[in-house]
């Protein structure tokens, strides 16, 4: 493994229509290799119907020191939860 080899984050969609979920990461030198490595590592047991890979360095993450100001203000705003509505019959994935 060269030092220049990139780490790629892998997102797997288990079924058409569902969201892609983070599965882990792989090493790869190019995007094709990243996709194939992801396929070989993370879909061996029928987990996937679609794979996304993205270079880890291209992901922007929030910082832990910001977490109070980012997330705590949502704590006491119960009214933002859609619990006051009746769901229409047949609505999935909500």
């Amino acid at each position: 493994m060269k030092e220049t080899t990139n780490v790629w984050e892998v997102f797997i969609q288990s079924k058409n229509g569902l969201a892609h979920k983070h599965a882990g990461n792989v090493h790869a030198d190019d995007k094709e290799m990243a996709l194939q490595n992801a396929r070989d590592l993370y879909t061996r047991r029928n987990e996937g119907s679609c794979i996304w890979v993205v270079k880890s360095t291209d992901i922007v993450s929030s910082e832990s020191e910001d977490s109070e100001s980012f997330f705590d203000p949502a704590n006491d705003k119960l009214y933002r939860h859609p619990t006051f509505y009746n769901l229409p019959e047949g609505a999935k994935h909500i």
Partner: protein
Amino acid sequence: MSLLNYTLRIGDSSLILAQRLAEWCTNGPTLEEDIALTNISLDLFGQANGFLEYAATLDGVKTADDFAFKRNENQYYNFLITEIENGHFGDTIIRQFLFSAYLYLFFQKLATSKDEVLSALAAKSLKEIKYHLKHCSSWVIRLGDGTNESNEKIQSSINKIWEYTGELFELDQIEKDLVKKEIAVNREALKFEWDQIINTTLNQAKLMRPKDQVMKTGGSKGIHTKHLELLLKEMQFIPRKYPDAKW
């Protein structure tokens, strides 16, 4: 009898190559590629199992395990290209690329065989082979069109392995008769498309296609290279030491 022999030829090539690739397990150049190679190995073991099970049905006495583990070297009918040693990663990739391209075309045609079992096994295997070919083609291009060193190394791999490709397109009388019955694939006729796949990828990879030379042959007659003996010794060790042991 000739259908049994033909089925063994197909199953043996998958079995022996699967065993070869399994040697990469824990020895791959990276963790990712280690799993990729052993995935291919497992696919081929699965294919071998299908064909050897069918051989057992045709035989009526021997089981698939008997065929896999209890034959001598000269009773295996695999292509020689499947038994040669792994060499370095580039050697393995070239061997897999050349053979997967062949197998892809072969199974496409076998899927239309008048023998329903053979055609079903071929259709099932085809999807797997398509991925093997894709995976190996990208490596051939990556290494061929990589650095000077990787280009030289993989060029010498293909120069070295080329002499094992002639056999893939040779037919003997057994197969010719089965071709007439529309059971077997006319492998001679696969050469044109195989050349196209190989040439396209080699061009992209900036690699030279070796000149056709005297080709090695003998697999379908049970005449093998010295490499098969050692491979079988390892593969057959447990069943020979503990006959009929159960898991």
